[in-house]
């Protein structure tokens, strides 16, 4: 669609600048349950978000009813939206940076050309092998979820940027059953290269995750040395992401306010944002506001180096945007705790006795991103003499995320990313408060 006429109408109406973001997405979702294709969904959708500055205020709208005949109506709505705004926060529509990094490996032709039949075959095979891997597997499900997206950002200041990404997740979910217990588990691989979907390890891991939890019970309440598994630690990081967003800092909703260049974590800990990672759909050369992205440490060896900024928060504070303006707010691209040297086995051995936490439940409710407090239902295993012993469930792990960052004993080497591309290696924390029996 040609948006120039829209920009013209907006200009005549009195808009200072207008920006559109058009995205065109396609997706395939497949799910096999006990040998049957249980879900087969396809989608083809377009959406448009429009922002415009009118009398110093930002108007916003989005629509799926995308048609040139709507241009006049959109401008009216945009004006109404801008006029309602009272906030004196700065508003910016960006003219662009001098150069943007071209990123390789975020769009794969191979994924796109692989037939739906071939994709189905992968999922059917995965499910069948998981189901037959252990007789205690009562329910098995395998899924494949693929999306591709083409995004175009264009504004009345002459900026036009485009990107295309695709990505897929292949995973399995099991319920293992014994006479008096049932436990669920899942594991996944994500990539945009079909050859990465090597199911051998995936099967072994997911089956073990399920069956080894059978008979899990709470441990006695007390203080325990704890290793939080990589992907679980990554999810926990996700619950406290807002602490690092300048918007929350400026509004007094983050305890990291005033902590720039101060130690906020163990000196071995670095929190890195890398927008250029291969095979990640989050990788991008520009953010949602057209700002060029770059690799940076949010925490460098324990020291808080920067908050994540968009154009608005950066202008407010008189700094440069960090290229984290996405979806009208602030988000990281690929954000992870930098891995250390020890693998999980070595970490377990070093710890000797304690708990290995493989799952935390209730991350959206049992955490306060404002105070950093969390109290979460956890499950995992007891560790005795460096080996996983008994499965543990229905315990609660409580602490404060900022205290946790300061009391990390060891950072593992086993970096793993969540679906939203937050990553962490396994982390050991000593003397955590656990409530159980």
């Amino acid at each position: 669609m040609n948006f120039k006429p829209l920009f013209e109408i907006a200009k005549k109406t009195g808009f200072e600048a207008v920006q559109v973001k058009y995205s065109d997405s396609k997706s395939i979702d497949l799910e096999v349950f006990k040998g049957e294709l249980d879900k087969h969904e396809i989608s083809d959708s377009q959406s448009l978000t429009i922002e415009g500055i009118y009398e110093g205020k930002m108007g916003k709208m989005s629509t799926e009813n995308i048609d040139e005949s709507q241009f006049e109506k959109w401008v009216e709505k945009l004006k109404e939206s801008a006029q309602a705004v009272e906030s004196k926060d700065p508003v910016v529509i960006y003219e662009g940076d001098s150069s943007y990094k071209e990123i390789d490996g975020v769009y794969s032709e191979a994924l796109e050309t692989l037939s739906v039949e071939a994709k189905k075959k992968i999922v059917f095979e995965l499910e069948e092998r998981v189901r037959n891997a252990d007789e205690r597997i009562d329910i098995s499900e395998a899924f494949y979820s693929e999306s591709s997206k083409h995004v175009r950002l264009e504004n009345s200041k002459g900026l036009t940027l485009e990107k295309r990404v695709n990505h897929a997740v292949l995973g399995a979910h099991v319920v293992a059953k014994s006479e008096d217990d049932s436990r669920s588990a899942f594991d996944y691989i994500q990539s945009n290269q079909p050859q990465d979907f090597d199911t051998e390890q995936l099967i072994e891991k997911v089956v073990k995750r399920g069956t080894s939890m059978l008979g899990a019970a709470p441990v006695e309440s007390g203080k325990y040395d704890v290793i939080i598994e990589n992907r679980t630690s990554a999810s926990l990081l996700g619950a406290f992401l807002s602490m690092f967003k300048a918007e929350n800092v400026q509004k007094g909703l983050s305890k990291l306010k005033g902590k720039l260049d101060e130690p906020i974590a163990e000196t071995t800990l670095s929190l890195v944002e890398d927008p250029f990672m291969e095979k990640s759909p989050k990788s991008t050369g520009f953010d949602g506001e057209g700002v060029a992205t770059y690799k940076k440490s949010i925490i460098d060896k324990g020291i808080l180096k920067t908050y994540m900024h968009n154009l608005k928060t950066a202008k407010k504070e008189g700094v440069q945007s960090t290229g984290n303006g996405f979806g009208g707010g602030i988000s990281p691209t690929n954000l992870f705790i930098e891995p250390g040297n020890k693998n999980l086995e070595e970490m377990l051995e070093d710890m000797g006795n304690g708990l290995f936490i493989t799952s935390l439940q209730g991350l959206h409710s049992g955490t306060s991103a404002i105070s950093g407090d969390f109290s979460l239902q956890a499950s995992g295993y007891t560790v005795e003499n460096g080996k996983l012993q008994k499965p543990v469930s229905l315990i609660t792990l409580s602490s404060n995320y900022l205290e946790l960052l300061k009391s990390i004993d060891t950072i593992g080497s086993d970096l793993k990313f969540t679906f939203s591309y937050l990553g962490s290696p396994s982390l050991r924390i000593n003397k955590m408060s656990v409530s159980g029996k």
Partner: protein
Amino acid sequence: MLEKRILERIINEALESTADFAEVFAESTMQNTLSMQDSALQNAKTNELKGVGIRIAKGHKSVYGHTNKTDEASLISLTNDLKTAFPGDRVRETVTLGELRHGKNHSVKIYPDTVDVSKKVSLLKRSDKSARLYSKDIKQVNVSYMDTVQHVTIASSEDIYVKDTRVRTRLGINSVASNDKDMQHGFNGPGGSYGFEFYDKIDVEEEAREASRIAVTMLYADECPSKTMPVVIDNGFGGVIFHEACGHSLEATSVAKNASVFSGKKGEKIGSDLVTAIDDGTIPNAWGSANYDDEGLSQKRRVLIDKGILNSYMVDQLNGKRMGEVSTHSSRRQSYRFAPTSRMSNTYIDNGESTFDEIIENTEYGLYARKMGGGSVNPSTGDFNFSVMEGYMIRNGKIAEPVKGATLVGTGKDALKKIDMVGNNLLRAQGMCGSVSGSIAADVGQPTIRIASITVGGRKEDAS
């Protein structure tokens, strides 16, 4: 909206295969959201959704596709793509749609899209002012407002051809209280299937003060001890415990696959005699109500548990085929972007006979969870966890000091059996429920109840 001829054409084109079911869900939705922070309006956004979801099935096997290219040719092309899943000769006769039926309940007086944005802004201002005036400890207030008008047309091979308009609005107040030691927040979010007249029905100022009251109370609260103890959960949003711990496990989504702890338990005793639980999508203008479910069947009242006995699951048409049961008209979805499945509507534990005072007086020691936060559950194991937004210790049958940071952990199966007192003060509250078919409006509810013993997680070493 799609005309009847096109709907019939899509359905019949889809049935040009071995499929025995075809459905079209066409949607056009307008949403408005406003947000206020620092006592100034930050954003006033409109969002327009428009698209079509097509579902084709054979038995309980289905394929689903959605698009916002809603011209006839694109829809027929999507249909043809989908039906390749069921190749072969036609098994159903030509479908002709009957008379269009219109949903008539849950009528709305003032459609929110006709209300001037300045009136909405002044509603947020009133909330903000009232929340701030509550206490000097209130340092920040975030107010959000939403309204949505969803027009749907649903047509299927099962003699379904209906039109429904779902209007909803909700106000959310999040108050932050802080001093040099701590920062705590409190939330209150009243809503309903109403138009703008909703704000004449509620006391906006009082709703805002409630959010601040929770935040300030928690600012001066002690850490909650970790211990297994009796817990009294108050009415209203306390019903989230039933929603999460039992409701999800009674949805055909998990029951049909034998993935629920309650699979195959119909007619059996799964809870204490005191527990009767209802899911009712017909309550006039309630947050989770509608005229039709998202497969076009009239909404109903379902008795899920009758005096402890499992009476009914929540079933949609396709899972019904898998289970050998008929639909309980429980199919719901966030939008055309989601294939529908069995979901809750307005779900609550029904009134018992105890008074609130009796329940507290009969509790020697325990936790009084006055306001619950959110929670989640694993439907295959029934393991659940909830955060307590506002809690107090109960000592010697009296409500004592406030405590923060409490989490309730357990399994739905156990908790239902351990309910040993049920109050007579049923109240519903609003929530958003996220599951496979997206995020939908759902009421939770209950009278004040007591669970005889449950694991409470907190940060304080037990001292009793």
